[in-house]
């Protein structure tokens, strides 16, 4: 493992599988009466958020607290790009406080990379989303969700996603989630297809390790998972597509379209979902939609990442062999994951 987690592209297959396996162990902590490990006791982790994201911040915070870290939340809203030195100044303040890790969310692509490589700071840097660049822990939790659902919770240990076919639909151009997922899923052996109107696909995408399609219907029957991205209504005014209705007709996922997917296939969404535009309520509420699991899995993944970056070499959890389960069919929606409400 590297010292920082900036981009999903930096992870090798073995790194990624190790994180997913570690996250399975972390998920088991949630089954315990005391949902806490002493692993990061005495360590300080800062959640440095230049951009609003309550969901992501709470997820990291829950992970940090379960590992017994001291947590500082630092919100620097609105000061990111307008003032040149703000990132550096803030970083050096944190450095002076003896911070061990910085979880950073920033509106500017590359800000976490700058933070990790400019010599401003010694702490480990974890990218919690930068501009339209990367959101690696999101990709990891998505991969974790897919492995549980498509391979199996226990059967998945040590496994990657070889041969799985993943379709990512929507605003690829502005999506750090799409970028991170393409990188990680490719590393894990999956075949990825991006589906979007041509206006929402970046120029230069031809170098990405995936297929591009402008036609959703033709990809559905070949998909093991369909990930719907959030499409902002503002994009319509910037002429990325003509009308909301036309977008929904061509790229929205409704019940009819879901019916074209193989029976085992799942529907994913990084959230928050805007029902109606990219996904209908019928799909969002169906048992095939993994949005709530994704939220829960996010905590396990972030625990695993923090543990592996900061925790050293000891095993994350003692007595960790998974009990061989006889009542866990691989596609069963896990009863053991943490629900979003428990976080707060």
């Amino acid at each position: 493992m590297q010292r920082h987690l900036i981009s999903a592209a930096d992870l090798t297959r073995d790194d990624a599988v190790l994180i997913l396996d570690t996250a399975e162990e972390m998920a088991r902590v949630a089954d315990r009466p005391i949902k806490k490990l002493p692993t990061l006791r005495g360590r300080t982790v800062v959640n440095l958020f230049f951009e609003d994201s309550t969901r992501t911040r709470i997820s990291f915070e829950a992970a940090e607290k379960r590992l017994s870290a001291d947590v500082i939340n630092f919100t620097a809203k609105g000061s990111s790009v307008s003032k040149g030195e703000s990132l550096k100044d803030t970083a050096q303040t944190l450095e002076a406080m003896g911070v061990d890790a910085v979880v950073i969310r920033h509106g500017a692509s590359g800000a976490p990379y700058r933070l990790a490589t400019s010599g401003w700071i010694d702490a480990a840097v974890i990218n919690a989303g930068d501009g339209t660049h990367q959101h690696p822990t999101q990709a990891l939790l998505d991969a974790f969700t897919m492995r549980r659902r498509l391979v199996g919770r226990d059967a998945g240990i040590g496994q990657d996603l070889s041969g799985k076919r993943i379709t990512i639909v929507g605003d690829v151009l502005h999506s750090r989630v799409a970028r991170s997922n393409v990188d990680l899923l490719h590393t894990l052996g999956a075949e990825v297809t991006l589906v979007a109107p041509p206006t929402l696909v970046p120029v230069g995408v031809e170098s990405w390790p995936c297929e591009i399609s402008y036609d959703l219907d033709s990809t559905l029957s070949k998909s093991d998972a369909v990930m719907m991205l959030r499409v902002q209504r503002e994009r319509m005014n910037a002429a990325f597509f003509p009308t909301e209705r036309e977008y929904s007709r061509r790229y929205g996922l409704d019940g009819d379209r879901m019916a074209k997917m193989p029976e085992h296939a799942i529907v994913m969404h990084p959230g928050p979902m805007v029902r109606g535009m990219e996904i209908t309520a019928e799909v969002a509420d169906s048992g095939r939609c993994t949005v709530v699991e994704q939220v829960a899995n996010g905590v396990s993944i972030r625990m695993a990442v923090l543990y592996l970056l900061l925790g050293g070499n000891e095993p994350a959890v003692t007595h960790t062999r998974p009990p061989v389960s006889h009542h866990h069919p691989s596609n069963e929606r896990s009863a053991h994951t943490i629900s979003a409400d428990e976080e707060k």
Partner: protein
Amino acid sequence: MSKILIRGAKVLGGEPQDVLIDGQTIAQVGVGLSADGAEVVEADGKVLLPGLVDLHTHLREPGREDSETVLTGTRAAASGGYTAVFAMANTFPVADTAGVVEQVYRLGQEHGYCDVQPIGAVTVGLEGTKLAELGAMHESAAGVTVFSDDGKCVDDAVIMRRALEYVKAFGGVVAQHAQEPRLTEGAQMNEGVVSAELGLGGWPAVAEESIIARDVLLAEHVGSRVHICHLSTAGSVEIVRWAKSRGIDVTAEVTPHHLLLTDELVRTYNPVYKVNPPLRTERDVMALREALADGTIDIVATDHAPHPHEDKDCEWAAAAMGMVGLETALSVVQQTMVETGLLDWAGVADRMSFKPARIGQAQGHGRPVSAGEPASLTLVDTAYRGAVDPAGFASRSRNTPYEGRELPGRVTHTWLRGKATLVDGKLA
């Protein structure tokens, strides 16, 4: 100031000769000239060029003296072998009146390191809506002949047409920063494979090319002369080549950094590589080199853009655009054009002195190295190899993309009308 004998210099890269300076002019060029009464500069094997002329420099004074001043900028110019620089108009206040251009011109004369020829803004405040007093700037003591809103594009086709027509009255030229503004909203780097991966806003080649195409057609239509600043794409080269073949009066410049660096460097997210127009691809770089060699691109201009440390020591999106270039330009040209066999030193003199002086009508610059000409000269140790160390820069700002990079060649002496401004690599 009296006599100086430069002994054994390869004049424009040719056979070694002696050059005798007497006062402000070159008295004699020949073999075995007498050193009698002259201070001797042993040039043994170094290349002697006419003083370099930069058609595109940002001196930042008035308004951003923390980045650069006329004094520090002209000292940087002398260090790089320049004897004349054209100062861009995007200062605070903007150089859009006779008063501002005269001030900049006079500061250059007072300091004496390098002639400063101000460029006047095309439109008031660079706002692109109302023509600045082009005639008054031309008639001022500064004698402005080049007009540019550089930093911004004159994107309104009617304003551009009028400016091109208007400057015909006094033989002026409009230098266009070709950047279609709508196509480059939020642009952070070249649009392509790397921008797609990095998630940085794309600056597409077509935003440059479409303006160049429009402007050469406008120049043809009104029978005027247009100069294209910092050409950066292979497509732009093709358009200029086509325009020239059609007889359109267009000239074009390329910066040293566009001859050497590519957008792959942006992967470091180091804002020292953030520049406008952005670093392009390897294919573009090769096309630019070839176009400079075959004359499609007329000149090298630095686009020397000094910024203080804090404007670059931040995240990419927040950083200022631009690089300093006066002190490294000749080295980059030596590496990319001479050592690749694309240009000889006479070609370098043409692209970095003769032609820029002609385009900008810089009196007394870009002259042949021969008897009776002004003694504005540059002596280059072409065998030198060394890593670039910004700590030694004369420029007030250090935002160079070449820190630690080994570049060939070093200017050892510069003379401005017989007066040494640089001696043995040290400012006089």
